[in-house]
């Protein structure tokens, strides 16, 4: 991305974050109340204390090797970065309320997985599991469903209003997968009936696949689930009107169900009650031999290619569509990419490292002439020092959200019209890689 665009980016971040900061300050007291209030509800599970990274939902039943997920269709609203809201559908696990996207289901390779779908919507709904084989629905092979001579679903559906359907399959290989509605998908998937399914390999939860070279740092595992919304389709569904899919035109694009800057807020941020999953990739530098890379699981439920682009950082693509990039005899086919061009329904598994290559510091300064303040824009997250772990006072009038001299490097969809929210620039699927200084803790900086 050019410097010119970057300066626009910084300016936009400043505008947006000023607003976010105000909201944030206003909501601190409310947040405390809301969280303590939530825990008193009998059915609502308290959100896990996990501000960043992938929040797994595990199977019920307490029967190792046989996880059971009860997914109930729910409706609700999400907040969008331009202040708009969208009516959505979703699957909610257990007794959870509506959330978007649907729960991240985590299972182990070899598990016999049961997903019981409880439908509450006014039309039939199903679940398909792309990448899984031998899926049974109520004990029978899943097959296309035909209604009145028309193909209507990729899998048998739970009847409208109160139907149930039980899907079972063996999670026979590790990887990142989608689950989504197979019924009238250009309506139902777009309304939000989708989520991520992660199958952990036999070698362990800190491996992407059953290969020693797919090991990653488990505290630095992130989801990048990309989606899109045409607000007119959602409005039509909310009002019970028909929608001509020929007029389908997305106006919002989201990462983990949020637009920027909500995307960098913590998991379970109190002001996003139905959008629990953040997308901030908070890591430490890769310290060399013995250290492990970070892991990003990309998924797309959209209808266009999404060229996702982490700035200043290549990633090693080790898997795609839940298949490790190795050939039939185990040769490595992984590849370095700085643009993850993810197609509809695809998933990509990417290991990444951030190196403090030059070790710049006060004693080893960056060899540039710093432009005058009049020609500079001070980013919201700038620490006042260009050095990792350094902090200095900011010019008068700057706002500083930096905690302890950490770095922030943007990641975004490079189809720039897709990082907008109905025309509002620099929103949409944008997040940051946050590099914490060595010796601190994620999130708190050890403070």
């Amino acid at each position, binding site marked *: 991305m050019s410097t010119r665009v970057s300066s626009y980016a910084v300016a936009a971040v400043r505008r947006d974050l000023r607003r976010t900061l105000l909201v944030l300050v206003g909501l601190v007291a409310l947040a405390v109340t809301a969280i303590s209030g939530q825990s008193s509800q009998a059915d609502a599970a308290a959100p896990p204390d996990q501000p960043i990274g992938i929040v797994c939902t595990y199977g019920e039943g307490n029967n190792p090797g046989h996880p059971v997920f009860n997914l109930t269709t729910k409706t609700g609203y999400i907040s969008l970065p331009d202040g708009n809201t969208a009516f959505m559908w979703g699957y909610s696990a257990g007794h959870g309320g509506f959330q978007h996207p649907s729960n991240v289901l985590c299972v182990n390779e070899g598990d016999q997985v049961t997903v019981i779908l409880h439908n509450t919507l006014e039309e039939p709904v199903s679940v398909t599991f792309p990448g899984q084989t031998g899926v049974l629905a109520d004990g029978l092979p899943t097959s296309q469903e035909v209604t009145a001579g028309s193909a209507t679903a990729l899998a048998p559906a739970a009847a409208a209003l109160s139907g149930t359907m039980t899907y079972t399959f063996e999670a026979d290989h590790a990887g990142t997968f989608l689950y989504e509605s197979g019924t009238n998908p250009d309506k139902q998937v777009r309304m939000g009936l989708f989520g991520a399914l992660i199958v952990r390999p036999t070698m362990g939860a800190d491996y992407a696949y059953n290969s020693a070279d797919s090991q990653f740092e488990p505290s630095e595992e992130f989801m990048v689930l990309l989606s899109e919304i045409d607000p007119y389709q959602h409005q039509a569904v909310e009002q019970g009107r028909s929608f001509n899919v020929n007029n389908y035109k997305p106006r919002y694009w989201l990462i983990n169900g949020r637009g920027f800057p909500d995307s960098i807020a913590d998991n379970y941020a109190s002001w996003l009650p139905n959008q629990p999953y953040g997308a901030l990739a908070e890591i430490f530098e890769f310290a060399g031999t013995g250290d492990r890379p970070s892991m990003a699981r990309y998924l797309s439920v959209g209808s266009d290619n999404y060229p996702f682009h982490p700035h200043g950082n290549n990633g090693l693509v080790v898997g795609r569509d*839940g298949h490790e990039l190795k*050939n039939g005899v185990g040769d490595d086919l992984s590849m370095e990419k700085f643009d993850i061009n993810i197609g509809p329904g695809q998933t990509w598994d990417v290991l990444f490292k951030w190196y403090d290559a030059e070790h710049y510091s006060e004693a080893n300064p960056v060899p540039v002439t710093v432009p005058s303040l009049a020609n500079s824009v001070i980013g919201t997250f700038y620490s006042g020092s260009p050095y990792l772990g350094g902090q200095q006072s900011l010019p008068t009038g700057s706002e500083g959200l930096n905690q302890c001299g950490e770095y922030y490097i943007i990641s975004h969809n490079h189809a720039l019209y897709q990082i907008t929210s109905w025309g509002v620039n620099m929103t949409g699927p944008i997040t940051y890689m946050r590099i914490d200084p060595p010796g601190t803790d994620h999130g708190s900086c050890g403070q």
Partner: protein
Amino acid sequence: MSSRVRCNAGEKVALRFANLGFKETAMSIAGIPMRVVGRDATHMTGRDGHDTSYVTETINMSPGESYDVIFEAPAYQGGGTDPDIYVLYNRQYERSNNLAGGGFGGAATHIEVYPPGHLLEQVHPNDWAEVAP
């Protein structure tokens, strides 16, 4: 020309994809993995002879690209001789729809898997293969 695929369980089936449209397309099979063995009429082999073929469920094709894939028809699950039906469809849903009432009407077809030996060999590509006497 029909794009209906008929095969016996256990057979290796070759699918040749070519994107002659002007948009990316994401052909997917629900429930059968495919191995990509050729792309743009070139065998998936590196310069040093390494096999670079890979397995996927989604062929994300740019305009003008072509892909050759092979899948193995899964074990027959049904009863009698009715085929198991797997759907081959464009995951870019509006391109597998064409405004068909309530479902799939565009770039979508069936892969029909019969019990072993039910169908004779194809006579030419894309024929449906006769039922064995």
